């Protein structure tokens, strides 16, 4: 009996030590964002003397946080909405219209999922650069729309396949067309799987660095990861405001996580398993 109790004790000890190791980086960032750089270097673990938001004010201005936040938000919201709409419609067509070419299109889409971004990065910049289309938020959104298709269609395809035809047929018999059948019957049924794709795409686009760094060249266009990067390049000696900048950047994600953690975790895992 004591042996078993000891085992349970060590299990809890082990898992909580690991949890502390996992979480401590975030604690250190928040804790030290209220100190001066010197206090941080001397004693990173000690609590700050007072809650001084000076570093935050500094970071907020220097990294143009508001501008970055608005850019990130616009790009993410528009891209994800468009991906969800276009990909679900395409998946519906691929499932319900038994054309021979649909099989080919679907196979190409699935195969394209293994292409790493690095393999298209150089020609992408070269093509769009030649057409003078870089440095444009809308082109970036169009690119996300293109890169997001394959995965979203793949997930929607698997789901629509299992929706029985009956309800759509009712709409068609009543004189409705396919478009109405899709929007009235299929789209509402897709909600749970839409949430999965939405969460994955939001995390991907919100956090993406490489693609926007190649497309958005002017400082005013920067998304949050880009403004964090340039903030660190420009002010690399004054650590305290940099840490405040990190906390500001991850704050929106953490807030969303607190409210929807189960949804988010489930969405990410569903995306991986399928």
């Amino acid at each position, binding site marked *: 009996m004591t042996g078993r109790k000891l085992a349970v004790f060590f*299990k809890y000890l*082990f*898992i909580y030590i*690991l*949890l502390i*190791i*996992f*979480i401590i*980086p*975030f604690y*250190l*960032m928040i804790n030290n964002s209220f100190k001066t750089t010197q206090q*941080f*270097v001397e004693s*990173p673990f000690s609590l700050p003397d007072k809650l001084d938001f000076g570093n935050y004010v500094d970071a907020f201005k220097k990294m143009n946080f508001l501008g970055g936040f608005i850019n990130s938000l616009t790009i993410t919201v528009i891209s994800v909405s*468009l991906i969800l709409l*276009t*990909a679900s*419609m*395409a998946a519906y067509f691929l499932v319900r*219209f038994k054309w021979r070419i649909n099989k080919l*299109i679907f196979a190409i889409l699935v195969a*394209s999922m*293994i292409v*790493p*971004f*690095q*393999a*298209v*990065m*150089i*020609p992408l910049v*070269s*093509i769009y650069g*030649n057409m003078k289309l870089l440095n444009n938020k809308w082109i970036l959104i*169009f690119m996300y729309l*293109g*890169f997001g*298709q*394959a995965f979203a*269609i793949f997930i929607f395809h698997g789901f629509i396949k299992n929706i029985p035809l009956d309800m759509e047929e009712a709409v068609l018999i009543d004189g409705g067309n*396919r*478009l109405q059948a899709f929007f009235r019957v299929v789209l509402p049924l897709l909600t749970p799987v839409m949430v999965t794709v939405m969460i994955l795409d939001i*995390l991907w686009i919100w*956090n993406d*660095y*490489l693609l926007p760094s190649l497309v958005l060249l002017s400082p005013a266009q920067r998304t949050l*990861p880009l403004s964090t*990067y340039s903030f660190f390049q420009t002010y690399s000696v004054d*650590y305290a405001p940099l*840490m405040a900048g*990190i906390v500001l950047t*991850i704050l929106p994600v953490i807030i969303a*996580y607190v409210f929807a*953690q189960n949804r988010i*975790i489930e969405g*990410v*895992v569903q995306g*991986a*398993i399928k």
Partner: protein
Amino acid sequence: MVSKKKSLSNAGFFITFMGPSLIAFTCVLMIPFLYGVFLTFTNYNPIKGTKDFVGLENFLAIFTDKEFLTQFLKTLRYVFYSTIFCNILAFILAYILTSNIKARNFLRSGFFTPNLIGGIILGYIWKFIFANVVTKVGHTLEIESLKTSLLTHPDRAILAMIIVTVWQYAGYLMMIYIAGFVGINKEVLEAADIDGAKGFKKLFYVTIPSMVPSFIICFFITISRGFMAYDLNLALTNGAPYGSTRLASMHIYQKAFQANQYALGQAEAIVLFIVVAIVAVTQVLLTKRYEVEA
């Protein structure tokens, strides 16, 4: 007449339903990919304005380039160690979290948190930790090996990359393993209990063999993400010290956009694509083979 009208409306549906999706996919992925394959057979350089056919010259240059080979080996080593450690840690976490333990959801959310944040931010967080916090701990506790930052050692800086990668993905893989544990057939486990299999015996002979699909998914995720790692690499080490941590993606980026060797960089990117494709095809074949056996 009727069939003509029908095929016309079918074409209309095709354009409405598939049009936006296919146009975006083609313009952003298909055309650049095919154009990219074409570029590897040229001496493309937008600065000099050249684009002449040179055959396999770029690929020959890659495989005789010592620098590419050393950084490729480095990438392989990074992928190998981060895959192994990440999966071991994730499996242990999942094993404990599916046992009889309190506050399961809280623990699960805690371990998962690093996955929500982009590589750039994670890289900067850990840069502070390796450079300032760990060295501070080393000085306070008089531990010699912690006194200097990992990031300044050419041989050990890659270890920093591996540590952060494991920290970043362990919680994600943990969730996939948890789904695997939950999905194990209860009857099989009960049968094992009746047969007297307990503890580690049950784990190695019953649980692990029935979780092969989870292992395949997790290994594939870590391997392919490892080969593509860029953001974390850029923020944490930027290849330093002395290029000792410059992994494949960063090498390609610098070849093209900093050294202006576009065609060579693209050829290396295609090599990377082939490696990732081989990994992916292997995964699919393994999964299929396992499904037949099961």
